[in-house]
């Protein structure tokens, strides 16, 4: 065993002494399908369609403020 091997062995022992083996229960579920599902989900964006909707609603309530009461009735 040369000097490098001894050094590596020393580091290995130190790491093992600091990180005890995991004795907890095994994971019961497969997480990979969930990861794939998350990757498939498209990110939420505020696009032109949503901007138009929000703008139209704001303009309508600015022009016809009496509709605001009726809108509050439904929220």
């Amino acid at each position, binding site marked *: 065993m040369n000097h490098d091997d001894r050094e590596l062995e020393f580091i290995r022992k130190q790491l093992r002494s600091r990180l005890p083996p995991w004795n907890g229960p095994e994971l019961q579920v497969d997480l990979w399908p*969930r990861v794939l599902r998350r990757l498939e989900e498209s990110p*939420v964006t*505020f696009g032109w369609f*949503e901007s138009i*909707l*929000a703008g*139209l*609603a704001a303009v*309508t*309530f600015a022009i*016809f403020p*009496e*509709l605001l*009461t*009726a*809108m*509050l*009735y*439904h*929220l």
Partner: protein
Amino acid sequence: MKSHPYLRAYMAGVLLPSWFLLLVLAAYLLIHFTGRGPAGMGSAIVFPMAIVPNLWGLWNLLYTSLGLRRRVSIGAFGSLLPLILVPAGVELASVLDLSFYTLRQAAAILPMAMAIYYLAWKYAVAFFNRVVEPR
């Protein structure tokens, strides 16, 4: 966190209108104490307090239980809810004899309600669903 999926869906749906109810109540109190509100406002508060949040919860429960997530966007599904809520509101207003909410106003508010509901469901309810779904 895998249990009670329908209860979680219902709660995720109820949350936003319940928060918004505070604003509605504040507006109601302001109108009530300034005395400038239309007649029958006290009776009208029943609708946003009792019916709207529960219908949001049930609508989200329906969206989850029917497995529509992959077929219909939650925003589009949520925008259909005013098609039930607005006629129900008109009916309740006529039963309670509320003068401030007429059929003409309901017709005018319907597209606006659908647009606002689309945004609310797409961003808020979808976020709440993601928070409560099992990880």
